[in-house]
């Protein structure tokens, strides 16, 4: 009995002791850059004595709850001077910090991530972050800084060749990337067929690419998330930033709306190379322009509002016979609200529009198509304790798809008015994500996303016999379109088809030593929108289509494991991944997707898989900085016949996707010779893209026809090139008034003719068949002048 009493007293004391000696208080606030008040994302706030810390979120806000006491705090962010301070935590405090850019402010770093010990422990893997400054360092064709070209230098990221738009992450297709600009979705990330990206590097504050380990707050695309945040604008003083290059120029103006409280940012970019074409007697026009705008206002210490916009257009025209215009429009209103010093929220109301228009004067018709969406997002970040952080929220999107409208443009036109049926859908998600420090060495993040997709009513949904829009003709061994037997019209509020999926996401980080860790992750993701494209890379003519009666959502499982180590000035990452995707759309031979009002008649359901390993070695400090990335991977898909007697696509065998590149080596580096001169260089080597070569020829109707066998069974020659650029800053110590620098660059220094495609044709003069290689960029020198006011 006495033993029991002592035991009870002990237990009682143990329970009570925490109430007294572990009183906890919260310190929270915003971290900004001193001269502009631009908030900083991902700043590390370390409490070395407690061996704990946190980082600022996408709006510069941090919050951490610690036991009462006095502690040293170290605030660090790559490219900025550290702040060392002492905090007396006797009550809940709000403390904002202003960081100063490191004085040699041209001493850029290429990647800022995973340098601090804190990040060794962070349960985040397969993520690469880039700052705007580093993107502007990487030499690219025509001297134009380019976000998408910069990320293709990272391991696991590639593209389907020069002239292809979009990018491919870990063997995924270009439409499987969720691209967000200030939380709004962008549908086409390229201008002029991938020669330029839609992002103005001057307007960007921060960029993160998630290749795996994707947290539950993101969803809707299965391969990756490219999350880009624009700057708010300097709310202390007016500044301008710009550059003039051979092909395009840009100008950004920022300044206060109300000093220290409100700011605006206006940036524009345009290309003008087409103005020189008349000199060569070419009556064609091809140009792009974009406009980035942002207004930010701090209502009070708990509320901030932002209004961002983006408008971009590409215009092509051919000698008055043909004009083509397309681009994204985004308008986005956001409200940050602090419910308490531990609960941060952001509400976003977004409108986005992707438009594609074609005017064919010589055939006398106009074609318009597009996708519009309205999106509401409400995200909460709950900083519960220093070992437990919760993120939860909802995301709701309403879509209207216009697959196309063909209108005669003159009264005498031979074309009839035709409207492809509009489609409507409603996509919703609820998520909860926890970041949990289980012990000193083990941190986990785990979450669940519940997503649902409702395909709403439309006019004229085709009905087919046995629900089969594609039939297999056994005699000819080909797939053919089935003719609809009927069609059904619905009210807008009807639900034709609904899908829902639970998407668990887990990442573990196990610290091995102070400088190394092992991480592992599992993601399940679903994608309800699909870009219909049966060409080797997407074109602006391609149409997005929602899942429905005949098109199923794509479902992905991805496993990844990695080893991370920091040593001296270097960091090393080794990751391996495996992914499988169900319901990957494939197209019957010769499918014509353009102006096709019944795409269900040309598609079949297949699956895809990708696996590989990635190595990244980075040097982050010193005169020489850069990284070397190597990826070895495989990306393939398979569409077997629906029954044993059907052939399937490519005889139902696995075949390489168009962006499968076995070996991908990227090296990028910068060397600071002196304060005025800096050298930047890139070297790339990639296995040639898969392609199909003919295996025989025959003559039919007087024409020589090449015959092709298996899909993508051959490869183009290997791709490699070397780029070099020099950055010259005439007055490196000047930091007021007009500051400028020149960039002199050469793309493809040894003039390698890299094949974009090889076509097979009969030479009319010689009568013999030949293979013709198209190489887009030989050696291309460039000059640009960049300034900051």
């Amino acid at each position, binding site marked *: 009995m006495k033993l029991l009493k002592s035991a009870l007293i002990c237990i009682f004391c143990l329970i009570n002791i925490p109430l007294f000696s572990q009183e906890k208080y919260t310190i929270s606030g915003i971290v900004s850059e001193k001269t502009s008040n631009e908030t900083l994302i991902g700043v590390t706030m370390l409490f070395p004595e407690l061996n704990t810390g946190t980082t600022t979120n996408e709006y510069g806000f941090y919050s951490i709850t610690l036991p009462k006491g006095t502690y040293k705090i170290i605030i660090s962010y790559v490219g900025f001077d550290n702040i060392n301070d002492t905090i007396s935590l006797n009550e809940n405090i709000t403390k904002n910090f202003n960081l100063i850019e490191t004085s040699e402010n041209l001493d850029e770093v290429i990647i800022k991530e995973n340098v601090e010990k804190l990040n060794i422990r962070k349960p985040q893997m397969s993520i690469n972050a880039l700052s705007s400054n580093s993107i502007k360092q990487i030499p690219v064709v025509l001297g134009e800084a380019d976000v998408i070209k910069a990320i293709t230098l990272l391991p696991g990221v590639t593209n389907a060749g020069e*002239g292809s738009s979009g990018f491919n992450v870990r063997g995924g297709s270009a439409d499987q990337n969720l691209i967000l600009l200030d939380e709004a979705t962008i549908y086409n990330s390229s201008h002029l*067929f991938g*020669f330029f990206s839609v992002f103005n590097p001057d307007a960007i504050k921060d960029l993160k690419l998630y290749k795996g380990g994707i947290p539950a707050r993101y969803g809707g695309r299965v391969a990756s998330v490219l999350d880009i945040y624009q700057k708010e604008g300097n709310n202390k003083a007016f500044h301008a930033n710009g550059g003039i290059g051979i092909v395009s120029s840009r100008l950004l103006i920022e300044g206060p709306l109300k000093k220290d409280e409100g700011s605006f940012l206006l940036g524009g970019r345009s290309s003008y190379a087409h103005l020189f*074409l008349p000199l060569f007697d070419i009556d*064609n026009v*091809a140009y792009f322009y974009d406009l980035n705008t942002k207004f930010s206002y701090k209502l009070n210490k708990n509320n901030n509002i932002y209004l961002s916009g983006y408008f971009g257009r590409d215009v*092509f025209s*051919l*000698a*008055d016979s043909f004009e*083509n215009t397309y681009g994204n429009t985004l308008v986005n209103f956001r409200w940050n609200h602090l419910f308490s010093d531990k609960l941060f929220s952001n509400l976003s109301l977004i409108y986005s529009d992707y438009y594609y228009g*074609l005017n064919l004067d*010589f*055939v006398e018709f106009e074609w318009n198509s597009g996708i519009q969406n309205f999106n509401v997002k409400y995200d909460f970040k709950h900083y519960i304790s220093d070992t437990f952080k919760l993120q939860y929220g909802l995301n709701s999107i309403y879509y209207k798809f216009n697959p196309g409208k063909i209108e005669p443009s003159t009264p005498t036109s*031979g*074309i*009839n008015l035709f409207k492809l049926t509009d489609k409507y859908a409603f996509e919703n998600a609820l998520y909860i994500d926890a970041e949990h420090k289980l012990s000193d060495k083990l941190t986990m993040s785990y979450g669940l996303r519940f997503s649902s997709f409702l395909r709403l009513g439309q006019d004229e949904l085709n009905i087919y016999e046995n629900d089969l829009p594609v039939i297999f003709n056994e005699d*000819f*061994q080909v797939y053919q379109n089935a003719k609809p037997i009927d069609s059904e019209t619905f009210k807008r509020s009807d639900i034709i088809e609904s899908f829902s999926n639970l998407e668990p996401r887990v990442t573990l980080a196990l610290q091995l030593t102070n400088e190394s860790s092992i991480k592992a992750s599992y993601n399940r993701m679903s994608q309800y929108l699909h870009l219909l494209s049966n060409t*080797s*890379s997407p*074109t602006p*003519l391609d149409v997005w289509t929602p899942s429905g009666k005949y098109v199923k959502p794509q479902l992905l499982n991805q496993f990844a494991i990695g080893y991370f180590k920091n040593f001296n000035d270097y960091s090393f990452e080794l990751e391996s991944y495996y992914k499988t995707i169900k319901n990957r759309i494939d*197209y019957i031979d*010769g*499918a*014509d997707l*353009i*102006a096709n009002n019944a795409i269900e008649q040309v598609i079949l359901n297949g699956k895809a898989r990708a696996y590989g390993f990635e190595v990244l070695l980075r040097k982050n400090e010193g005169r020489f900085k850069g990284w070397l990335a190597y990826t070895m991977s495989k990306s393939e898909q398979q569409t077997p016949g629906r029954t044993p007697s059907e052939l399937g696509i490519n005889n139902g065998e696995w075949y390489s996707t168009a962006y499968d590149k076995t070996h991908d080596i990227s090296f990028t580096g910068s060397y600071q010779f002196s304060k005025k001169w800096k050298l930047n260089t890139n070297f790339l080597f990639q296995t040639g893209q898969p392609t*199909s*070569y003919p*295996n*025989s*020829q*025959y*003559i*039919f*109707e007087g*024409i020589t*026809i*090449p*015959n092709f*066998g298996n*899909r993508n069974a*051959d490869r183009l020659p290997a791709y490699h090139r070397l780029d070099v650029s020099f950055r010259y800053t005439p007055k490196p110590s000047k930091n007021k008034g007009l500051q400028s620098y020149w960039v002199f660059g050469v793309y493809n220094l040894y003039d390698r003719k890299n094949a*974009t*495609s*090889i*076509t*097979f044709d009969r*030479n009319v003069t010689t009568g013999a*068949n*030949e*293979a*013709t*290689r*198209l190489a*887009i*960029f030989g050696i*291309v020198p460039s000059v640009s002048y960049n300034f900051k006011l």
Partner: protein
Amino acid sequence: MNDMRNVIFISLLSFFITSCEDVIDVDVPTAPPRLVIDASINWFKNTPGNEQFIKLTLSAPYFDTEVPPANGAQVIITDTNNNTFNFVEDRNTGFYSNNNFVPEINGIYNLTITYNNEVYTATETLKSVSSVEFIEQQNDGGFTGDEIEIKAFYTDPINEENFYFYRFTNTTEPDISLEVYDDEFTDGNQIFAFYTDEDLAKGHELIIRNFGISEQFYEFMFILQQQTGDNGGGPFETQPATVRGNCINQTNPENYPFGYFRVSEADELTYIVQ
């Protein structure tokens, strides 16, 4: 519409003065030869249509300079009126001809070929065609704005599904261009077939032929077009694959033939470029 992607892309290339096209050596795989059935029965308007021929060849390795003829085959066409038309080979050329053919609009014809002890069959319907009414020439078209463009106008019958196969033969150059059209967006309208070529010049003789075709031939030719000549290759090519026609090898289905058995009413117009 389909060429639009390539057109836009090629125009864009005019910027990149450093871009180039070179002929290179490539190792391509070799597949065993197959029979190629080039069976086009054309009944030109205002002719009896009794003289017809069929060409049989074999497929060959891609870089060979010639394709071999398929000799010694037996070629027969039958119709629904119990007529049998025998096609006789001209020496060893692979051309099989007949001079007592009876064409009939919407007649159904069956082709039977026996070659190398295997039997190949196909069935097709003779489709009617609209006449080529007139030609319009424009001298400021094409992709550079100074090429000659030819439009061959015809009128599509309303409320029927029609498909057309156009063949533009420039006898002066020489050059052959094939196009297929449907009437999905042009039903009942006067519309044109389009031809342009950078080498087209004044004085060239252009023979324009319009053939009435079935939907199946339209699909077949459409896919073939995607993979050959100006439309083939480039970053926007659709995935190429073996194109299957309407001929089946009854004896050994795996040894299917290339080509197509087409039966059409046809119209022809000769035009001298102004």
